């Protein structure tokens, strides 16, 4: 019984993460009908942004609430900016092109982030460059050399995983005779719920949200109605990326290993969750994420754990075949 409850707790904390990432997918898809494959990598960037800020603030030795907040806000800002940039430079130029095209650029961006973060640090690269030049008997002009000296020596992080300092003290509670819950699980859940509710409000209560839905319904007409489509889409990207950052920090805080490809699998899974819940629907993404989290947990816990990944997708396929529009998705019969 305790074991089952434990699984429930685990599944919940896993599901909330999926849900948060899935929200990003679902919103972007909603307005752009584009599977933003780079989303998982935005999530990764979020984790690293948090990491660098935390190291700068020396969170590891002296964690505190204000610092934690700073880390969160900073990472969210970075990801927001990144999301905006990606949309602006990789997707917008192709908006009126076949969607496959932007899908490829999405993959391109994803690769760029993943492999870019695996490069040696700028300083190391600079030194290597200097080495080559000197190998040719050339030497760097003084100003350039000066620049070399100030290049960051731990960015890009390279492929070796980094340790993510705990943004705040970890507390573990044992409840109901043997079920272990940590304040991280609670905080994650709380934060996730808060953000989801906030998002729901944004989408259904604000002017921006209304515009967003209009764009997702028919961006052309929305444009004719004087809605600044581009700005709305940018906004959506920023929003989604910010959520990805939140998810990343919640994960990194309790599972403190971060590396450049940490976004790959969570990205795919979250995508599955989004589709499962009906891509384009906010509550769908939440439910999808939770369902996925639970089912993975239960499969791994009670059957052959190596089928864990398989089950996520098997489930997905089943749902799609039985209910192609997903749990909360709306049917869009093509008008003839």
């Amino acid at each position, binding site marked *: 019984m305790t*074991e089952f409850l*434990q*699984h429930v707790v*685990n*599944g919940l*904390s*896993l599901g909330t993460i999926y849900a948060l990432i899935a929200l990003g997918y679902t919103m972007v898809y909603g307005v752009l009908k584009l599977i933003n494959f780079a989303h998982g990598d935005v999530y990764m960037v979020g984790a690293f942004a948090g990491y660098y800020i935390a190291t700068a603030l020396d969170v590891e030795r002296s964690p505190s609430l204000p610092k934690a907040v700073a880390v969160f806000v900073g990472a969210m800002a970075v990801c927001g900016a990144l999301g905006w940039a990606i949309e602006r430079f990789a997707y917008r130029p192709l908006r009126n092109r076949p969607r496959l095209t932007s899908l490829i650029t999405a993959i391109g961006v994803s690769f760029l982030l993943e*492999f870019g973060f*695996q*490069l*040696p640090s700028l300083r190391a*690269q600079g030194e*290597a*460059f200097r*080495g*080559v030049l000197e*190998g040719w008997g050339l030497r760097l002009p003084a100003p350039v050399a000066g620049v070399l000296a100030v290049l960051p020596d731990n960015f890009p992080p*390279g*492929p*070796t*995983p980094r*340790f993510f300092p705990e943004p705040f003290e970890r507390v*573990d509670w*044992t409840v109901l005779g*043997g079920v*272990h819950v*940590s304040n991280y699980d609670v905080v994650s859940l709380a934060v996730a719920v808060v953000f989801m509710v906030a998002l729901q409000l944004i989408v259904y209560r604000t002017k921006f949200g209304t515009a967003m839905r209009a764009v997702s319904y028919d961006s052309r007409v929305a444009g004719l109605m004087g809605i600044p489509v581009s700005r709305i889409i940018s906004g959506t990207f920023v929003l989604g990326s910010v959520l990805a950052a939140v998810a990343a920090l919640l*994960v990194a805080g309790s*599972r*403190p*290993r971060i*590396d450049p*490809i*940490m976004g*790959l*699998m*969570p990205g795919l899974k979250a995508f599955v969750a989004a589709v499962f819940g009906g891509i384009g629907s906010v509550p769908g993404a939440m439910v999808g994420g939770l369902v996925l989290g639970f089912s*993975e*947990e*239960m*499969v*791994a*816990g*009670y059957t*052959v*754990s*190596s089928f*864990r*990944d398989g089950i996520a997708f098997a489930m997905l396929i089943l749902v799609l075949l039985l209910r192609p529009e997903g749990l909360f998705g709306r049917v869009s019969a093509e008008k003839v």
Partner: protein
Amino acid sequence: MRPARMVAILAAALGAAACEAKKPGADAAPAAASAAPSADRILVGHIGSMTGSEATFGLSTDNGIKLAIEQWNAKGGINGRQIGLKTYDDQGKPEEAAVAATRLTVNDKVNVLLGEVASSRSLAMAPVADANGVPMITPSSTNPRVTKENGKVRPFVFRVCFIDPFQGTVAAKFARNDLKVSKVAILRDVGNDYSMGLADYFLAKFKELGGTIVDDQSYKAGDQDFKAQLTAIKGKNPEVIYVPGYYTDVALIARQSRELGMRQPLLGGDGWDSSKLFEIGGKAIEGSFYSNHYASDDPSPRIQDFVKAYQKRFGSTPDGLAAMGYDAAMVAFDAMKRASEPAGTSLRDAIAATKDYPGVTGIITIDQNHDASKPAVVVEVKGGTSVYVTTVKP
């Protein structure tokens, strides 16, 4: 002529890229200039996953090799010939490894081929090495089939690491005889042949020694959440959990097991050996054991010197893979010194004749299966480092 324009763009982009990227190219391979083999130069070819999910392992190995080369060159090279290194990335894909191996052997005409970390990739390289008569030493591919395919020993392929059966057995013996436990749970990386191999041999040996495997769970490298499996394992309350994976995942596994209030020590293999394990694992990993080639607290100078030199050169403590890469290169160079001609069959024979070479990862002797027979040590994680516990002879 739009396609033409396209091609132009492509060419331009490539060109630009090529120039821009000269730096690392040259960095990774001081010998980049000398693709063609010359009598007064020795070229080492290394294939590793410099990008992708296992890049960190490829990188460490590459560093180890670099260090070995720089040390020899500093000493005036091998019989007066300087050593160059050419590293190719295989992105962790076997097919890439095969192509890279072909290029190194056929175009770059390397004297010796080093790599790969993962057996699956070494298995893709081995046939190429044999076909071209270029000796190949894999630093850390532990699957028996790498050196011995269908009962036949591959003529040109060697290794300086343990093989799965040995290390699995070591762990099993240690668990049964030294820790005196009888109930063990296994948590293996289903996507990783190294982990699967160790787990299987451990399982067999441990049963043979009269122990019982209470649970056999698996995860996938890169997972961030292992609580499901751990919770299941906890229900079976084993005395020890055998986790033959890489430190990248083990650190998290340790943490999460503690978070679930599990107190059992974890037991692992040389894949654990990295300072990252202690950094990420923190308190959680304390009191766990793993089999390894050496204990970093081993006072013997050859180990301490290596650790110092490595830190000096790369600013980080070497992990097991770096040490293996270093030894693989060292064994090759030692053989070259002895060989009449530092390439081809004579080098092959020289490597095969390696006996009691004092490597960082132990006294290496290449046996008739082209495997390194060397004792394994078992170390315990104490105070953020590994502490010698016992030595197990082959």
